[in-house]
C-alpha cells in the first residue's frame, strides 16, 4: 500500500481527506460524551446542529460534505457557505470524536474555510467587513485606533517595562472596558507589574477563524515581533479567543510549536490560580451569590498547545512519525474553578454540561457577526441550563461569551447576571 505525504496545514484540504472520509457518523461530535450524558435534556454540545437539525450542520454531515468538496464534487453555493461558516468552531466535535478515534475534525473544518477563501467564495460578508475594519483601524469594530487605550483609568498602574505584557484585545479595549480594568486591577492587587503593547492591534482571531490565513499570519508576525521588542516573558490575556490565538494559532500560522514562541502565553484564569496558590491573590471580600461557570471554548477544548507535524500516512491509515493528538485535555478547566471556589460567600454549582462537555455560547470566531440567530439561540439554550441549576450569576472568561449571554438575557427578560471572571475576582478583593 503506497504512502501519502500528509501534514496538519489547513491550507490544503487534501491533508484531511483521510480524516473526513473516515467519519463513521457516530455523532460523538454532537452528543455530550456518553459517560457524562445528563439525560434527555441538555444532551448535545453542538450549537450548529442544534440551530439547524439537518445532519449537514453537524460535523458528521460536514465531513461528508468536506469529502465531496476535496473530490471536487460540490460547488460553492450559499448553502455550502452557511454549512461551513454557521459554526463557532468550538472544538466539541473534535474532542468528541477523539474520545475513540484519531481523526482531525476541527482542523478539517478550518481547512474547509481556508478553501472557501482561496476559491473566492468565502468568507461571509460580515467577516469581510471585519477584515476591512482590521485593515483600516486594527480592530474588529472599525472604531478609532487611537481610542484603543481609553479604557485605562487613573487608578491603574501600568509599568514601562515588565515581564508580563497584558494583551487587552479589541472587545475589552472598546466595548467591555470593565474586563480590561478588572484584569489590570487584579494584576496591580497581586503586585504583578505589567506593560501593554506599545501599539496594540487586533490579535486576528476572526481572520484566522474564517480562513483568511494570509492576513492572520501577517498580524501574527507583527504582534509577535512587537512583543519580542518589549522583552516580555509572558503575554497575559483576559479574552479566551485571544488566548487561543496567541497560544495555538500563532504558532500554527508560522509552522512552529507553542513551545517555540519566545514567551509564555497565559490566561487570566491560570494567572489567578497561580497567584492564589502563591498567596498574592487574596479573595477576602464575600460575594454572596449562587453562581455557575461557563467553560469558554478557547481556553478549554481548543487550548492544547500546538506542535506542527508532517509525515506519511500508510498501512491501515497509520501515520509516521507518531503524532500525539490534541484532545483538549490540557485546557484550563481546574484553574478557574479553584479560584472561584476560594471566594468566600460563593455557592458554586456546576453547569450540567461542564468542562469538555460545555455547550458553546455560539458567538465566537466570527459566528455572531455572520449568524446572529445562531449566537442568540445558542446563548438562550445555554441559559436554560443556568435556570435549571438555579444559578443567579453566570461567569465566563471571555468577553464574547459575556456579551452574547448578556444580550440573550436582556432579550429574554431573564434574571441571570452575567459576569466576566475578572469582574468576579475583583469583587472579592479588598480595595
Amino acid at each position: 500500500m503506497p504512502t501519502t505525504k500528509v501534514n496538519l496545514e489547513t491550507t490544503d484540504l487534501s491533508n484531511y481527506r483521510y480524516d473526513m472520509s473516515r467519519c463513521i457518523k457516530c455523532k460523538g461530535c454532537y452528543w455530550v460524551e456518553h459517560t457524562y450524558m445528563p439525560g434527555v435534556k441538555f444532551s448535545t454540545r453542538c450549537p450548529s446542529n442544534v440551530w439547524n437539525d439537518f445532519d449537514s450542520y453537524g460535523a458528521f454531515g460536514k465531513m461528508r460534505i468536506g469529502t465531496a468538496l476535496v473530490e471536487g464534487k460540490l460547488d460553492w453555493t450559499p448553502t455550502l457557505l452557511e454549512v461551513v461558516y454557521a459554526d463557532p468552531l468550538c472544538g466539541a466535535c473534535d474532542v468528541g470524536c477523539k474520545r475513540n478515534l484519531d481523526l482531525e475534525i476541527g482542523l478539517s473544518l478550518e481547512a474547509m474555510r481556508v478553501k472557501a477563501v482561496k476559491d473566492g467564495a468565502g468568507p461571509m460578508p460580515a467577516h469581510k467587513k471585519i477584515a476591512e475594519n482590521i485593515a483600516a483601524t486594527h480592530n474588529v469594530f472599525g472604531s478609532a485606533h487611537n481610542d484603543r487605550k481609553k479604557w485605562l483609568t487613573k487608578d491603574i498602574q501600568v509599568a514601562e517595562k515588565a515581564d508580563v505584557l497584558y494583551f487587552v484585545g479589541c472587545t475589552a479595549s472598546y466595548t467591555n472596558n470593565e474586563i480590561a480594568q478588572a484584569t489590570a486591577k487584579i494584576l496591580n492587587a497581586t503586585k504583578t507589574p505589567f506593560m501593554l503593547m506599545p501599539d496594540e492591534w487586533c490579535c486576528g482571531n476572526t481572520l484566522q477563524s474564517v480562513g483568511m490565513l494570509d492576513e492572520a499570519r501577517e498580524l501574527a508576525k507583527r504582534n509577535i515581533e512587537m512583543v519580542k521588542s518589549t522583552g516580555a516573558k509572558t503575554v497575559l490575556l483576559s479574552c479566551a479567543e485571544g488566548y487561543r490565538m496567541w497560544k495555538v494559532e500563532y504558532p500554527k500560522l508560522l509552522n512552529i510549536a507553542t513551545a517555540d514562541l519566545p514567551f509564555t502565553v497565559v490566561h487570566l484564569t491560570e494567572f489567578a490560580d497561580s497567584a492564589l496558590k502563591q498567596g498574592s491573590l487574596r479573595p477576602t471580600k464575600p460575594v454572596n451569590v449562587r453562581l455557575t461557570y461557563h467553560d469558554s471554548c478557547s481556553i478549554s477544548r481548543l487550548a492544547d498547545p500546538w506542535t506542527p507535524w508532517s509525515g506519511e500516512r500508510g498501512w491501515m491509515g497509520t501515520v509516521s512519525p507518531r503524532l500525539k493528538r490534541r484532545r483538549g485535555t490540557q485546557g484550563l478547566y481546574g484553574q478557574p474553578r479553584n479560584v472561584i471556589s476560594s471566594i468566600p460567600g460563593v455557592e458554586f454549582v456546576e453547569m450540567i454540561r461542564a468542562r469538555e462537555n460545555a455547550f458553546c455560547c455560539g458567538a465566537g470566531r466570527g459566528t455572531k457577526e455572520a449568524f446572529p440567530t445562531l449566537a442568540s439561540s445558542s446563548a438562550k439554550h445555554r441559559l436554560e441550563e443556568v435556570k435549571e441549576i438555579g444559578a443567579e450569576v453566570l461567569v465566563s472568561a471571555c468577553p464574547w461569551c459575556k456579551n452574547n449571554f448578556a444580550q440573550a438575557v436582556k432579550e429574554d427578560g431573564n434574571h441571570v447576571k452575567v459576569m466576566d471572571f475578572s469582574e468576579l475576582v475583583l469583587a472579592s478583593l479588598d480595595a
Partner: protein
Amino acid sequence: MAIVKEAYKALEDVVGAAYLSDDPVICEGYRSGPAGYEAGLGYERVMTKIPGAVVMPKTTEEVQKIVKICNRYCVPYVPYSTGFYGPRSHCHMENELLVDLKRLNDFEFDEKHWYAVVGSGVVYSQFQEECLRRGGYVVIGGGGAQASVIANLIGDGWSPLSHRIGLPHRRILGTEMVLPDGEILRMGSLAVGDDWFWGDGIGPDLRGLLRGYTGLRGCLGIVTKMAVKVLPFQPERLQPKGISPNTALALPEKRVKWINYIMPSKETQVKAMYEIGKAEIAGAVTKVPLFWRAIAKAECKEEFWDIWLKETPETIANFHIVRVLLIGFTSEEQLEYDENVLNDIMMELGGQPRPTKPSDESWIKNADSAGMWLMCGSYVSVDYVIETLKQATEHGPVYAELKKKYTPPLMPDHGDPGWFQSFELGYQGYSEFLIYWDQDEDTTGVDHFYLETSKMNINHRFYTSLIGPHQPMYLTGPKYGPNYHEWMLKIKNEFDPLWTCHPPVPFAHDEFVERAPWMHELKTWETPKEFPYPQWVKERLAAEAATFRAGLKSEAKVKK
C-alpha cells in the same frame, strides 16, 4: 429529476419549509459513506445514493402524511434515526426521500411500572442516564450509546448486559408505527387505549412485524414511538469521572463490580459461562478478545498496531478471559453471595482473578463501539448471533478459518475467533465476529467474505444474524424455515404493495450481487428471471443498474 414537484410541495405543507430540503449540499451531508458501519464496501458504493430530499417530521401524524404522499406519487423513502447502522439505513435509489426522525424525541418515564416511552430520535445515551437516575438500567446495544433506542431495539439490542436482561424482543411494550401504506398500527396495550405499559398483542402479536431477528432495515414501515422496558438496577450512583478519551463510571464497589478471570483453557472458559448461567448470578458475563484490550490500552491507532503485532496465533489461542459484572440488585449481601458463588466456580475450574479497575469504561453507559474503527478505519460484524452457548462457543473458529482466505485485505488478527458470551442466564449464548479493513485497499475480498459467510453458515448449519435483508434472500431463503423469504415477500407485498418503503430492501443484497460484476462468480444459487417488484421499481432499478454499469465502463477506460 428530483423528487416529484407535487410531492415536494405537499411535503412542505406537512412539515414547513424549514424541515424539508432538496439542496444538494444538505443531501450530501446524508451520504452513507465513505466510512461508517459496513461502509467502504461494495454494497455501500453500489447500492446507496444520497437522498433526493430530506424531511424531518416531528410527530407520528406528520410521518403518516409523508408516507401517504410518497405512496400517492410513488416516491421511495427510507426511515432514518441516526444513520449509524450504515448503508442499509440510507437511500438506495436516486431521488429518494430520506425521512430523518431525529425530531421525534418525546420522552416519558413511568418509574413505578418500569418503562419509558420514547420517540425515534431518542438515543441510548440519553435513555440510560434517565434510567440510572431512577434506579433502573437497560442494555445499550453493541451499536453504541449513540444508537436510536427504537432503531436498535428493532434490529439489534444486545450487549454483555444481556446475560441478565436477555432478548431485546422481550423489552418492546406498547408501540406505534406507520405502515408502509400509511395506516397507523398501534400494538400492545396501545391497541385498545392510551396506555403504553404492555406489549403482548390482543391475541396474535403483531410485534412480529417489527423486527425479525436482526431487523427489517426499514422496509416494513416506520416506528415512531415505543414503550421500552426498564429493568431494576441498584440504588447507588455510578459517578462519571475522567476526561476524554479516558472517561469512565466509578463503580460503587459494594453494589457493582467487574472481575476478570484468566482461565486455563477455552474449555474452562466455556464451562465457566455454563456454570454461571446455572447458578443464575451476575449481570454480565463475557469473553474478552485480546485485541479489545489492545484498543483500550492504545492511545492512538499506531500504538494499537505496536501492541497488536506483538501478539501471535499462540498468544491469541491461549488467551482466555471471562469478564464478569456483578450487580447487587437486592443488596450488598447479594453481591457478596454472587461473588462467593463465582469464586466457587472459578476455584473448581482454575480461573484466576486479575486486578480489575473499579470502573466501567464501556457497556453500562457507553457500549464503546466507535473504538472498533480505530485500527483500520473500516469495520463490520459479519455475525452477531444469539443462539445457545453450544453454538456460540463453536461459531467463531469456523469464521476464523474462512477468514484466513481473505486476509488481506482483512486485518491480520492472528486467527482470533471472535467474541462470545452468556445470554439470558445461560439459556442462550451469543457470538460475534468482527472484521476490519482499510477501505482504500481493494475490498473485493471483504465483499466476498461477507457473502461466503452466509454459505458457510448454511453448510455448517449455524443460525446467523445476517439473514433477511442482510444477505441475498434467494440464497438464505430456501435454507432457513425453509423458505422464510417467501413469507417475508408475502408480508411485504401485503403491507407495501407499491414498494415505496425503502426499495429494493429486502432484496437489496440480491440486487447488489446482480449489479456488481465482482460478485457474479459467487452466485451459486437460483433466482427468478425477474425479481418480484412492481413495475416502477423494476424500471428504476434497471435504469440505475445501467448507469452503474456505464460508470464502471468509463472508470475502466480512465484506468487504461
